């Protein structure tokens, strides 16, 4: 295993990944800061906006909302495109300009459909696809060495592919990427099993930097089971579906975003002594409290980092398991009520149960266990054995 890791760390691909993420970091930091403010404070359904009724008395609320939205759109909203650009630059040996421009323009062409000229894959959804596309472009430029021929050929190919896709189907590629987990998990009928499986798939896709089927920032659970649970709770009845994503996974295992990364921030602050990483963790603390984790995912190289794959899977699964046990033994009330997506993680269960103390304790216990799961792996990274 460690041999495999060493080979991976010295591979060209890993070099491209780290170089791309490093180049993107300033953009991600600014974008996430703006997004945290936008979603939690300056949106009508933001956590702080609803509990303090900010929209009613803060002057310029709408203007600030629009302004922050612009910043987010042109920072995070361009990260997929820029990933293609930076990855091509990092992968090409001696023609970085040709490679970067071709990759960027090519990625724009690929993500322009008749419906939109600003597809989701230009933003965070396209981080990994963009990176792979860019790396491929860079690799071609590094090996074929005829940029004046290669660039037009690649762009023509991209345009042809785009036109072909549009002709065949009117779906974006995101649809293809997120449709299969639903198809896979729809097959299991056992609810607890289903919940665990989706938790794993969610972590897996998050680790790859892809859009997850259960995003931490989805405004609410709208499934039939969640609705049935809510109705039962409002009528003071026992809820019909206790083991679902809405009752076990979302309120207990998404603190700080997919992968329970609030626990990772705490683990870093506890044991990682590298100044740059500590600065990153301090910066990530505030966005993590409103469930935004991109600076952490890219800056601490969680995405595509084999060492952190294990806790990224295990921590949410453990928190879900603890919640399942507590609910199974009737120690706490089930989480059924809708809460704002930007609610600080440890408060999610407390609010979704309408103020159930045992649920708060279970949530904090889950967080503590998740920190304990992350600790040894963070120590391993911080110890310098594997450079991250």
């Amino acid at each position, binding site marked *: 295993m460690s041999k495999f890791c060493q080979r991976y760390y010295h591979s060209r691909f890993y070099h491209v990944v780290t170089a791309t993420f490093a180049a993107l970091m300033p953009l991600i930091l600014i974008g996430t800061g703006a997004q945290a403010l936008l979603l939690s404070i300056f949106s009508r359904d933001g956590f702080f906006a609803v*509990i303090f009724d900010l929209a009613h008395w803060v002057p310029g609320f709408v203007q600030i909302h629009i302004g922050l939205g612009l910043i987010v759109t042109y920072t995070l909203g361009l990260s997929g495109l820029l990933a293609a650009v930076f990855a091509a630059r990092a992968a090409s040996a001696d023609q970085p300009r040709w490679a970067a421009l071709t990759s960027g323009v090519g990625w724009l062409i690929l993500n322009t459909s008749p419906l939109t000229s600003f597809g989701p894959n230009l933003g965070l959804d396209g981080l990994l696809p963009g990176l792979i596309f860019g790396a491929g472009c860079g690799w071609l430029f590094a090996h074929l060495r005829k940029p004046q021929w290669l660039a037009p050929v690649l762009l023509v190919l991209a345009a042809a592919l785009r036109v072909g896709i549009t002709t065949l189907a009117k779906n974006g590629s995101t649809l293809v990427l997120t449709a299969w987990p639903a198809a896979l998990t729809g097959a299991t009928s056992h609810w607890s099993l289903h919940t665990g499986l989706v938790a794993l798939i969610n972590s897996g896709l998050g680790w790859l930097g892809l859009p997850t089927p259960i995003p931490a920032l989805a405004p609410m659970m709208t499934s039939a089971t969640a609705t049935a649970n809510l109705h039962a709770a409002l009528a*003071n009845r026992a809820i019909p579906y206790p083991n679902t994503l809405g009752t076990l996974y979302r309120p207990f295992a998404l603190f700080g975003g997919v992968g329970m990364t609030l626990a990772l921030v705490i683990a870093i602050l506890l044991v990682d002594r590298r100044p740059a990483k500590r600065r990153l963790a301090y910066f990530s603390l505030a966005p993590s409290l409103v469930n935004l984790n991109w600076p952490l995912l890219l800056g601490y190289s969680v995405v595509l980092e084999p060492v952190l794959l294990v806790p990224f899977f295990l921590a949410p699964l453990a928190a879900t398991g603890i919640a399942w046990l507590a609910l199974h033994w009737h120690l706490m009330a089930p989480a059924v009520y809708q809460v704002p997506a930007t609610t600080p993680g440890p408060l999610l269960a407390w609010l979704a149960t309408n103020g159930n103390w045992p649920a708060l304790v279970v949530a904090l216990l889950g967080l503590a266990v998740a920190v304990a799961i992350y600790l040894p792996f963070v120590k391993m990274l911080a110890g310098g054995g594997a450079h991250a």
Partner: protein
Amino acid sequence: MPKWLKVLILSAIVLLVGGGIFSAATTWMHRQVRDAKVVHNSQMQPIILVPGSSATQERFNSLITTLNQQTTGHSLLKITVKTNGTLVKSGKLAARDNEPYIVVAFQNNHDGYNNIKKQARWFDQALKHLTATYHFNRFRAIGHSNGGLVLSLFLEKYYASADVSIDRLMTIGTPYNLEESNPHNRTQMLNDLIAKRKSLPKTLTVYSLAGTETYDGDGTVPLNSVECGKYIYQNQAAHYTQITVSGDNAKHSDLPQNREIINYIQQYMLQTPNQTPGRSQPTDSQRRMTTATP
């Protein structure tokens, strides 16, 4: 500034801000849930009355006449469930009556555990029809004699799958142990009721009223049999209250006309004793809402 002071001030600030956010969020959530309940719950919450064995849908006429002399705006609908499950209705719910009385009686109104089980199933069918026709999702129930057994069996066997919730139940002279006066000799029915008590709603408030004509019963039902209700409801329902009345009209068949019992119904079972006919009745929580947001 020494380090410990810095740490102290910092943690005090964090604690203060965190506590403020925590309490504000909790208050907001409670309000959200309370408002959602107002929207979710139907305005109408009928009181459903089930007579005992050998009694028809006319059993509660005198009771409701007396109640309507003391209160205003409650209409009366009477339903008899035939043995084939069809319903025969008489009477009519007044427009905008949020708390009507609905009597559910059975064509087969015989005594005996097997008949009571059938009556519980018929009650479930009648309730499904009523909720669909009159659009309510909550009710309160009063059962006289075996009617209380029908309601108890319904709550244990059918309630969990019904789209309706109950918050109060009153049983009047209900023989939870049939005619058996020794609580140690439990009948099959009582054993069954106790065995399935866990499926009773935990939020239910139960009043069990007993009459005493003699020192050990109301002339028909032994006091000990009524008191066996505690083995079913106590520590399972949210509240279980046992009340014994004596004096005039404390005989088993007279209990629904007993003045004391009528007062208890008015006090414990009616949410809005005086409704103004022809006007929509705001519920308590809606009243709170309108004052909160002018």
